[in-house]
């Protein structure tokens, strides 16, 4: 009945210790591996036949490639295609993990902020490192828009830096909050059904309302699972575009 219980991390076995911290194989790690297996099967197994007229699974693999490639090309230009492996991996991983989490009795990896934060920090670090490697000090133009009066410059630069630093936060918070809120909503509404059921026949009759809501929210959650993976990918593209072309 506890709506938070589904997010509990369970240790299956322990590899060892680093300092005081245990390194354990958890249910989170298990579901990451399952997602990885699903993606690998989809990308390697389903395209193995290399049919000219693709079958069902091969179509899915091809559509997902086209989709991510078009997203990346339209927001970061063809120069951004260098980062296609990164963006595609992020998109497929988040999508797989989100959708697997919607199956009952599974665990949603992205409902833990440590996972989404590390993904967002990966993107953030790549943007900074690639930005400096490619543009050198011109990367700082990102923080100093042209056409600003000189006496406003210090304030504007400070605000732009803050805005830049808040990126990994909003990037990770969005995915985490969406998944967490959606799964809690589902659990709470489902809890209402059994609670009303305790009142006998009329209780069960009244439980039709939360049941309908659970069905509707489940459908919505499938949309959100896809949408959040897409938003994460497109924001990655936009941030990468800043690293490739700073100062505009």
């Amino acid at each position, binding site marked *: 009945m506890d709506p938070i219980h589904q997010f509990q991390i369970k240790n299956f076995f322990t590899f060892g210790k680093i300092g005081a911290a245990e390194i354990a194989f958890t249910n989170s790690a298990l579901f990451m591996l399952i997602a990885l297996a699903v993606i690998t099967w989809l990308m390697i197994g389903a395209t193995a036949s290399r049919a000219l007229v693709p079958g069902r699974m091969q179509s899915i693999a091809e559509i997902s490639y086209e989709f991510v490639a078009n997203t990346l090309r339209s927001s970061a230009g063809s120069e951004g295609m260098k980062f296609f492996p990164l963006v595609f991996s992020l998109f497929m991983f988040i999508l797989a993990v989100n959708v697997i989490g919607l199956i009952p009795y599974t665990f949603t990896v992205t409902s833990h902020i440590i996972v989404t934060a590390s993904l967002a920090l990966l993107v953030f670090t790549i943007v900074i490192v690639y930005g400096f490697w490619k543009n050198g000090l011109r990367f700082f133009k990102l923080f100093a828009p042209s056409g600003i009066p000189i006496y406003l410059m210090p304030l504007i630069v400070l605000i732009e830096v803050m805005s830049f630093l808040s990126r990994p936060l909003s990037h990770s918070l969005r995915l985490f909050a*969406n998944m967490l809120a959606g799964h809690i909503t589902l659990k709470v509404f489902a809890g209402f059904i059994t609670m009303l059921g305790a009142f006998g026949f009329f209780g069960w009759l009244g439980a039709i309302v939360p049941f309908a809501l659970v069905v509707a929210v489940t459908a919505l959650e499938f949309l959100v699972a896809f949408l959040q993976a897409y938003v994460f990918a*497109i924001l990655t593209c936009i941030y990468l575009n800043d690293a490739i072309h700073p100062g505009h």
Partner: protein
Amino acid sequence: MADDARDKADRDQATADEAALSARLRDLGERLGRHHPDRPSDGEPGQRPSADASAMARGFRLSTELVAGVLAGAGIGWLLDRWLGSSPLGMIVFLLLGFVAGVLNVMRSAGVIPTNTPARPKD
């Protein structure tokens, strides 16, 4: 001296790799462009696509932008106060700046103001 030369060689190697990769990508783009005439083969990154597939996602996006700005400001202010012992000045200043940055983020992602400068120098 030798180190400099090696550095330079490394950098040349890196730019050569970069150029080769770009050439391969362009080649692939041209070949794909023949198959998909509707797709521009060398696209200038045009209008930023709005990531608003649904209104709810958009609302969520805007609210997290604001929250993230304020949180970043609070975090930086708190750290500065801890290091410099300037409590509570750092928190006050950076919380306000964070709020400003959050509003800027929201306006940017809503497309109210263009991202960074309107006047784009050709380079």
